């Protein structure tokens, strides 16, 4: 399978990428590692006229301790996040989840910025960043803006990123008391049929993979936890208000049941410190 023809441009800096985007925002896509975009292009589900390769922009691959939060450059590959000492000690949930994405070959190429900008509800990292209450730093023609993750994922493969903007950094708070991650699939390397990223403590946040058109928070679970419910009682509310998709892997009802099991496991792992 070969992508449709496109014009290939290479950006040497964020400013250059933004200038190239500005020429035809709707017909242009940014290419980082390419592990979300190229498969879509090969299937001709995406046929951008212009591809701006941002993968060689220097200085956008880092995991940095920034005081109360950890700052991650958008071009940081999953493998680099997974093995980062700063990520492992300060935001272990994120390092762990980065190591669960796809397979080693995918993690050698895919980037956190690409994964978030793609906005696939079946991806793991968007849920991890949502559970951690992260902030996304976005650059565009009007300068830099910070988007809280709660307002970033708007719909299926749709985010708050404008067509002339580029995600440049992800910030996640440090010091989560406990965390858990669960991913259920039937084949190695596959997307989660359902996944759960949970952060417990004074401000519990539970984010779900593949339970709707975007990654979503399990509000009922969070409320129950805040009110002091046990993991099992809180997990029973995991599917509240959610209408997950039905597909080859699982029906809507199956997912609604599975999510209660996985949330319970994630919370039990989090509260006992097993991760």
């Amino acid at each position, binding site marked *: 399978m*070969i992508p449709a*023809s*496109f014009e290939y441009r290479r950006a040497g800096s964020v400013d250059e990428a933004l200038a190239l985007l500005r020429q035809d925002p709707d017909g242009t896509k940014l290419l980082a590692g390419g592990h979300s975009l190229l498969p879509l292009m090969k299937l001709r589900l995406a046929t951008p006229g212009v591809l701006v390769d941002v993968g060689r922009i220097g200085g956008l691959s880092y995991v940095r301790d920034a005081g109360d939060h950890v700052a991650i450059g958008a071009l940081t590959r999953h493998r680099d996040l997974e093995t980062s000492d700063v990520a492992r000690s300060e935001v272990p949930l994120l390092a762990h989840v980065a190591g669960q994405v796809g*397979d*080693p070959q995918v993690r050698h190429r895919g980037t956190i910025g690409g994964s978030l900008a793609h906005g696939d509800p079946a991806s793991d990292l968007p849920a991890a960043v949502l559970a951690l209450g992260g902030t996304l730093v976005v650059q565009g023609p009007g300068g830099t803006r910070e988007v809280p993750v709660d307002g970033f994922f708007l719909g299926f493969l749709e985010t708050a990123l404008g067509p002339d903007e580029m995600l440049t950094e992800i910030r996640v708070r440090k010091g989560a008391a406990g965390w858990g991650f669960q991913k259920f699939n039937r084949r190695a390397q596959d997307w989660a049929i359902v996944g759960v990223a949970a952060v417990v403590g004074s401000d519990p946040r539970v984010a779900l993979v593949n339970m709707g058109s975007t990654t979503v928070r399990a509000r009922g679970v969070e409320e129950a936890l805040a009110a002091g419910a046990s993991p099992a009682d809180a997990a029973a509310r995991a599917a509240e208000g959610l209408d997950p998709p039905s597909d080859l892997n699982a029906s809507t009802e199956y997912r609604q049941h599975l999510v209660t099991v996985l949330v319970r496991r994630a919370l039990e792992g989090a509260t006992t410190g097993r991760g």
Partner: protein
Amino acid sequence: MQVTVTVNGVPETHDVETRTLLVQYLREVRGLTGTNIGCDTTSCGACTVLMDGESVKSCTVLAAQADAHEIITIEGMAAADGTMHPIQQAFQEHHGLQCGYCTPGMVMAAASFLQEHPQPSEAEVREGLEGNLCRCTGYHNIVQAVLAAASPPEAVR
């Protein structure tokens, strides 16, 4: 567009269409057909090669992205005199293949994995090869081969 890619130590410059995938470039432009195309959807790992020493699925990399980078394919593993790479040797000795279609990708994935995990457990090998599918062997001998290749040379014999 023009790309200069070093494949198995040999740099060459070619004009390619922008949409050329790395696996097509390797097979059709460089004539290195040891890298197989299996699923063509980033799943099976048959097209795995090393890019700057790390395993990647060459069906999901543009030749343009490999411009100015170093690629190693299965043809680059054996020594110039034909002596097999220790991983190839181990696959032969442990019968880590049947039809052989997944083998080049398996060997390249194993090479990258062993760089990152020089002394892996069996469980780590199985997880480390999760990006490569084999439809013949049930994986048992592949895992044994990778474990053997990880051990000091005398243990492989």
